[in-house]
């Protein structure tokens, strides 16, 4: 597009085209290195990954790599419909766990993050220090966070049971956190803990962008704190909430580090997520085609999520 303005004299079309090309040529050169890398590492491999989902790459055909036998939709059929297939129950467990993991982590992180941002946005002694320090969990690498929590969750020696059982006497028995039904919470809690600071930062920036006059005018009109939150803060933060929700769900669904570091390559039926399942099947059991097929299904699921999200928040994007 040609820049807007009032040209004194209209240059000839050819001259304009030549100038546009000259300007664009520079832009293309600037974009080229990033584009090449993304082509080589994201786009071409993704296409190849979808192709591999149709191959039977297992322990015996692994040496053939991309020339492994073509089996059509068999991988997908095994995962989705073949109740005889031993791999299918594991897949169903992982889908269920990934959905509840994603819903809990994103739901709690966003709502608690907004609440804490409102608290930190008030004037109080130590505001600056508190707002700086609260970032710390996000700066701890997630693998360190996972190891740290794995240690804290230990049934006999971990600090969490010490506090709950020995110091506060809230529970009579020491729960086992890292095995069985509790283990999904053992990975949800650290994820929320580590995700909160970033969400708080974004909401704080959003809260500061809301002009004080709006609140003052509403207060004059007799709006209480809840009404001001409901009719000013929340609508103005909606675009931010939308963006956080979009990426929060994607990152949570693709979570790998925390369950893998905390619970190992096989977190068990209660905490196995899709990513740990894929990596275990593809690399420990060398079922690469199977892993690629699940990855393809995950990508389709995320595209559907983006479509749903877009329908829900389309109007907010225009105002954002």
């Amino acid at each position, binding site marked *: 597009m040609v*820049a807007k303005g009032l040209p004194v004299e209209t240059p000839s079309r050819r001259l304009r085209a030549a100038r546009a090309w000259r*300007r*664009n040529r*520079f*832009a*293309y050169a600037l*974009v080229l*290195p*990033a*584009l090449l*890398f*993304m082509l*080589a*590492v*994201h786009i071409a*491999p*993704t296409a190849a*990954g979808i192709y591999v989902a149709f191959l039977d790459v297992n322990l015996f055909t692994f040496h053939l790599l991309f020339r492994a036998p073509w089996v059509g939709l068999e991988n997908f059929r095994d995962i989705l419909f073949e109740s005889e297939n031993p791999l299918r129950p594991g897949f169903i467990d992982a889908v269920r766990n990934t959905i509840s993991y994603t819903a809990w982590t994103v739901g709690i992180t966003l709502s608690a993050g907004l609440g804490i941002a409102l*608290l*930190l946005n*008030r004037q*109080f002694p130590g505001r600056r220090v*508190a707002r700086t*320090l*609260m*970032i*710390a*969990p996000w*700066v*701890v*690498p*997630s*693998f*360190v966070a996972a*190891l*740290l929590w*794995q*240690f804290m969750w230990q049934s006999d*020696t971990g600090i969490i049971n010490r506090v709950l059982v020995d110091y506060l006497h809230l529970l009579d028995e020491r729960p086992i956190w890292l095995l069985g039904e509790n283990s999904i919470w053992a990975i949800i809690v650290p994820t929320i*803990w580590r995700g*909160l600071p*970033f969400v708080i*930062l*974004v909401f704080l*920036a*959003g809260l500061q962008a809301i002009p004080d006059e709006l609140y003052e005018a509403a207060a004059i009109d007799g709006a209480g704190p809840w009404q001001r939150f409901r009719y000013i803060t929340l609508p103005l933060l909606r675009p*931010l909430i939308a963006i956080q929700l979009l990426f929060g769900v994607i990152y949570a669904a*693709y979570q790998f*580090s925390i369950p*893998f*570091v905390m619970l*190992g390559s096989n977190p068990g039926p209660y905490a196995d997520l899709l990513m740990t399942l894929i*990596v275990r099947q*593809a690399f420990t059991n060398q079922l690469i085609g199977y892993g690629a097929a699940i*990855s393809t299904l*995950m*990508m389709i699921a995320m*595209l559907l999520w*983006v479509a749903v999200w877009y329908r829900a928040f389309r109007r907010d994007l225009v105002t*954002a």
Partner: protein
Amino acid sequence: MTALQLSPRWGRRLGNWGLNLLTYAVVALLLAPVAWLVFGAFQTDADLANGTYDFLHPTTAAFREMWDTVDFERYFVNSLVICSVAALLATAFASSAGYALARFRFRGADAFSLTVVGTQLIPGSMFLLPIFLGFIWLNQNTPVQLYDTRLGLILVYTAFFTPLSIYLMRAFFVAVPRELEEAALVDGCTRFSAFIRVVLPNALPGIIATYVYAFLFAWDELLFAATLTERNSETIPIGIRTFISNYNQEYAQLLAAGVVATVPVMVAFFATQRWLVRGLTAGAVKG
């Protein structure tokens, strides 16, 4: 009743102090695990196991022992080399691409932006599996060695963290006033030299923030490191797991290793925090 009734001003003040206390409690709760990481690293394994914590007499034994227990130095050096080089390349590519998106309306700009966001929708495993097969194929059939080498991880990480860096850099370049370049162009600079000599220096805080940001994310990466390395180029997230699997009771060392793995990113973050937070939130606020 009247004696107990508070004047509205006192009521509000009490409510305020209640909220202040809640704020402190929440911040304390967020910080408690970090504090536990640091305190625990200065305890002995026995004290951690028995609950006989001794905060008054910290010991640095765990820090000294951890380097001998596993080859932590190798993991540390690998992480440092791989992450700093990959973050540098990603920042360089993101600077030029982000500038193009911020300043030029070129054919394909929207498609390119969409691709940049689109890469975030792909599960890592989707491109990990073909990259893994491809690296193995290259190792077997060509002299190009990418599997289990630093170079292989550097290439993957560079691409991995370029898209988000592009978004950050674009936001920073939009904030650089156009007049600066226009003045440089009037003075006879070419577009390229205006970019290098005028725009880049003005976007320096943004560039540093993007570098630190890419470094932080690369430092944290586990999926590719876990699958594309075997025994030469493993990074800290891989190496640190050997503390649990092989040395189950040595939690003090594990925590000490955790502290050592956290310090570089903590320092990088808090040294550049002003710009980093602005960049991260600017990108998010503008959407």
